């Protein structure tokens, strides 16, 4: 019915006593997410919106049997939190934190790969699986910060390197009655956990997704790799938007990963690669609605 998260998700929030952590924990609980615990060293024993706080992930795991971690801690502590979640046996980590040093992420990613832990992000809005109000036990689940108010249940999978640009697209789809199976932000950093291909594969296999929207941007060559994968392995229709046609080369456009270095990082190169394999690429975000209808 969705990818990665659903009603079986038992979530730990790392950094739950922080301002952001508390705010989004409340939003996630309200949306129906099963937040089973939070972690803040030194604040074990406290409660946040009815959720117990632990000093360490290991203690939280023993008490709650969690299966997913959301990292919402300052950048300087984020690598440690990811190692902690992985070592505690969490199989899925969603890291929202922006501004983690690249060299930290190289080591974290290599470590998580070795342990077989799936990472989404960092520097991402997380995931949301809209609830299906008419069906019992089918309330929505979100891990992250995507506003629950803009999504609606449906059969389009959304995968994006961006935050508000994704909301823009989701909003446009919802406004036109096109619901979503799962919306996932994979993050705007140069080194991320899950890339387009990883998510496309999951959407391809998800029986409740029948079409997919990719929202890419300048920098790296993840969109080109996605194009190759789509050509080889995707049966479901895919539409795309690529941000940054007007971005000057060599400058970081906000996201640490959004920088044109060499020919493959340009929006043009990405659009060309996607169109070459039959993906319809929108000229502006709102046009996605027409291309995917």
């Amino acid at each position, binding site marked *: 019915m969705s990818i990665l998260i659903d009603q079986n998700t038992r979530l730990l929030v790392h950094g739950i006593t922080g301002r952001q952590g508390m705010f989004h924990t409340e939003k996630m609980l309200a949306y129906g997410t099963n937040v089973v615990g939070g972690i803040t060293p030194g604040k074990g024993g406290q409660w946040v919106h009815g959720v117990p706080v632990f000093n360490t992930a290991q203690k939280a795991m023993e008490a709650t049997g969690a299966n997913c971690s959301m990292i919402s801690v300052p950048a300087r502590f984020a690598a440690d939190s990811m190692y902690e979640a992985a070592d505690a046996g969490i199989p899925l980590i969603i890291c929202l934190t922006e501004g983690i040093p690249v060299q930290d992420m190289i080591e974290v990613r290599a470590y998580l790969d070795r342990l077989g832990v799936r990472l989404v992000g960092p520097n991402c809005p997380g995931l949301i699986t809209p609830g299906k109000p008419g069906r019992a036990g089918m309330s929505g689940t979100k891990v992250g910060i*995507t*506003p629950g108010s803009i999504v609606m249940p449906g059969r389009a999978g959304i995968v994006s390197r961006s*935050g*508000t*640009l994704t909301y823009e697209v989701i*909003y446009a789809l919802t406004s036109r009655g096109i619901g979503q199976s799962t919306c996932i932000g994979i993050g705007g950093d140069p080194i991320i956990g899950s890339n387009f291909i990883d998510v496309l594969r999951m959407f391809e296999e998800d029986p409740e997704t029948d079409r997919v929207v990719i929202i890419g941007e300048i920098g*790296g060559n993840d969109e080109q790799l996605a194009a190759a994968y789509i050509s080889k392995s995707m049966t479901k229709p895919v539409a795309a938007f690529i941000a940054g046609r007007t971005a000057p080369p060599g400058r970081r*456009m906000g996201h640490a990963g959004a920088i044109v270095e060499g020919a493959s990082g340009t929006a043009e190169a990405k659009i060309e690669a996607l169109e070459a394999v039959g993906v319809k690429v929108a000229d*502006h*975000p709102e046009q996605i609605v027409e291309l995917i209808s």
Partner: protein
Amino acid sequence: MNLHEYQAKWLFAQHGVPIPKGKVATTGSQARSIARELGGRVVVKSQVLTGGRGKAGGVKLANDPDEAESIANQILGLDIKGYTVRKVLVDEAANIRDEIYLAILIDRSRRLPMMMASAAGGMDIEQVAAETPEKIFRIHIDPMIGLRSYQSTYVASGMDLPPKLWREFHIITTGLFDAFRAVDASLAEINPLVVTGENGLLAVDGKLSIDDNALFRHPELAEMRDVDEETESEREARQYGLSYIQLDGNIGCMVNGAGLAMATMDVIKLYGGEPANFLDIGGGATTESVTAALRIILADAKVKAVLFNIFGGIVRGDEVANGIVEALKQIGSDIPMVVRLLGTNAEEGLQILADANMATATTLTEAAQKAVALA
């Protein structure tokens, strides 16, 4: 954040990389006395944060202290690609026999640091890569283990470096990687690494880009930032935590979120306009950040219209609208503005803006078309 050549080389030297003797001068007479100290024959090199200094006349050989002074006087104050030369590095001139290119950077697709080396040093590496790719050696480095001796040997032997230089070459590659790690670099480059007439190796030019995200753990590097090389607007943006990049167009944009900011620029261009900047105000969109952002945008004299594109997800649209109205009151401007709000409480926000006599839009297309028309 990019460092100056002299900063980069001095950091490399701290990790065992041999560099020429040299000092920084801000006046011709300083350059003269440094040249005298170094024995006469020196290279005077402009210190600006851009490439192509040589072609722009910013790097010159001086045969004696007198010449060093007059060359320094020529170079100081020179404009190189928009940057004014305020400092020169006066380096002992090297006896150059061969030139090697050596760099360590992040290979994003392999998710590893990578060493690149080529015997065709001194040249533009992208040109070498395009014309004679077989001359470039690429070595991936396991960051958990570090650069291994045999990897240096592989490159040194591949470049036909004389075996008696291999040990020194390994000390340099290891030192460069240590520096790369120690300062959280995204690029550490020596070009050229010179094989001297005395059969030694010498890092004659250096380049070092630091991962901005890692500056929190390198306060000493953050202090090395040359604020003279920033525009007033860039400096102010950095202080307020805004992502701002000035461009050549005439439509200023203020957007929350980097991807949406790029998309907004793209849509302006799509409808025939030219964006004046990239500006991401981040998640908050408070009165304070909106005010700072607006001041920065309007400081650009080319700006003829401003487009606000705010997605109210967590922030409510009415709050954002009030912030914009408040910021405008504080700044005051005749430049036409179009505000597009979306998401939570967008309608209430648009009403507030309309009441303040601002042009509004609900779709991005509509907003862009209005802004283009107004500019």
